C-alpha cells in the first residue's frame, strides 16, 4: 500500500502520535552522545532513578532512594519548573563496595534536579516515602477555563 494511502486510512490522532514518537526517538538519539555517569565524584553524590508522571490534575515525581536516611530527604523547588531531590545515605558507599577497584570514589548522598514539564503549584507539594520510594505530588496549575 502506498504511504499516502496508508496515512489517509489512519486517524489524525494516530498520525500526530506517530510524529511525536518519531520526534521522541530523534531527541533520544541526539541525547545519546551526552550520556553521563549516574554518580558525581566531585559532589560525592549518586543520581537516583526517577520518574515523572503527568496526570490530568497533578504531576507525580517518584525516585528510588535505597539506603536513604528518611529524615534527610529534601525536595526543594529550584525554579518555577524544576525541583531538586536530595537525601543522605545511611552509610557512605564506594565503588569498592561493588567490587570495582579501578575507580575511586565514595558517595554519601542522592542528588538530582528534575524539570517539571507542565506548570505546577510548588507550594501545594505533598511528599511521601514508602518502601524506599519517594513520591512527590505536585498539583497542576489551571491556566484558564473554556466555557461550554
Amino acid at each position: 500500500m502506498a504511504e499516502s494511502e496508508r496515512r489517509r486510512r489512519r486517524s489524525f490522532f494516530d498520525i500526530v502520535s506517530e510524529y511525536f514518537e518519531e520526534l521522541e526517538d530523534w531527541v533520544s538519539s541526539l541525547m545519546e552522545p551526552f550520556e553521563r555517569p549516574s554518580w558525581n565524584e566531585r559532589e560525592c553524590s549518586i543520581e537516583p532513578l526517577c520518574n515523572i508522571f503527568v496526570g490530568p490534575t497533578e504531576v507525580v515525581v517518584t525516585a528510588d532512594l535505597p539506603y536513604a536516611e528518611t529524615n534527610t530527604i529534601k525536595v526543594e523547588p529550584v525554579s518555577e519548573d524544576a525541583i531538586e531531590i536530595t537525601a543522605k545515605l545511611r552509610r557512605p558507599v564506594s565503588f569498592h563496595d561493588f567490587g570495582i577497584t579501578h575507580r575511586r570514589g565514595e558517595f554519601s548522598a542522592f542528588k538530582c534536579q528534575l524539570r517539571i514539564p507542565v506548570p505546577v503549584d510548588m507550594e501545594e507539594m505533598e511528599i511521601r516515602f514508602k518502601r524506599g520510594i519517594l513520591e512527590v505530588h505536585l498539583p497542576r496549575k489551571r491556566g484558564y477555563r473554556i466555557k461550554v
Partner: protein
Amino acid sequence: MAEIIRIIEKKPIPFGSLMLNGLPDVGLVGLIATSHIIGELDLNEVAYMDSDLLPPIVVLHEGLPHAPLRIFGDSNMLATISETAIPATGIYAVVRHLVKWGKEKNVKLMISVGGLPVPNRQDIAEPKVYGVGTTPELIKMLKEKEIEIVKEGFMVGPQALILRYCMEQGVPGIALLAQSFFNYPDPEAAAAVVKEIAKITGIQVDVSKLLEKGEEIRLKARDIMKRTQMEMAKMRKTQEYDLPLYV
C-alpha cells in the same frame, strides 16, 4: 545483512532439563531472581550468546571478560541472564534463537521470569505472582500450584516473545510474573517469584539473602535499569496497561 547469532557452548549441555530465563525487563525481576538462583545453586557458565545484535561489550568478573548474555546450568537446570539491556531492535532474533536452542536441547519446561508492573507497588507488602502458560495443560498445572493465571491482557518484551516462540516451536513454556515496579529494580518481587519457581520445579532456594541485600541490589542495578527502561520504551512496554479487544 544476515543476522549473526551464535550460542557458544563451553560445557556439555544436559538434555531435557528446565530452562529459566531472566532477561532484563520491568523491575529487573527476572534478572535479579535468576541471578540469585544461579548464585545459590552455584550453577556454572555453560554457554554464552555471541551476536552482532547485542552491544559491543564484555562484563568483567574477577578480572576475566564474559559475554553479557550467558547461560548457566547443572544437570537439572539451565538459567539465562543478560547483564546488559537487550536492544529493542535485536530482541526478536535474540529470543527466537534462545528458544530454538532450548528446543535443540529438548528443554522440558521453559520458565520465563519477570515482573508485572502495578502503579501502586509501594502499597503492596507481598507481591503476588501470576502465571501464563502456552498450553491448557500448563495452565491447569499452574492453577493446581495455586498460581493465578493472567487471563486477559497484553504482554510486551522478552517474556512475551519467549512464550510466542515456545508456542511456535512446541516447547512447553510458562511465564511467572510478580507484581513489581515498572522502572525501579524490585528485589522483593524477585524473591516472590523465586518462591513460586520452587513450587513448580521443586528446587528450593533460600531468599533471605536476596531480601537482606535488597537495598544494595537496588543501588547496584540503577544503570542497567535505566538502560532497560530506554529499551522498554522503544518496545512500547506501557501497552501492558492497555485493555485487549476481542469481541
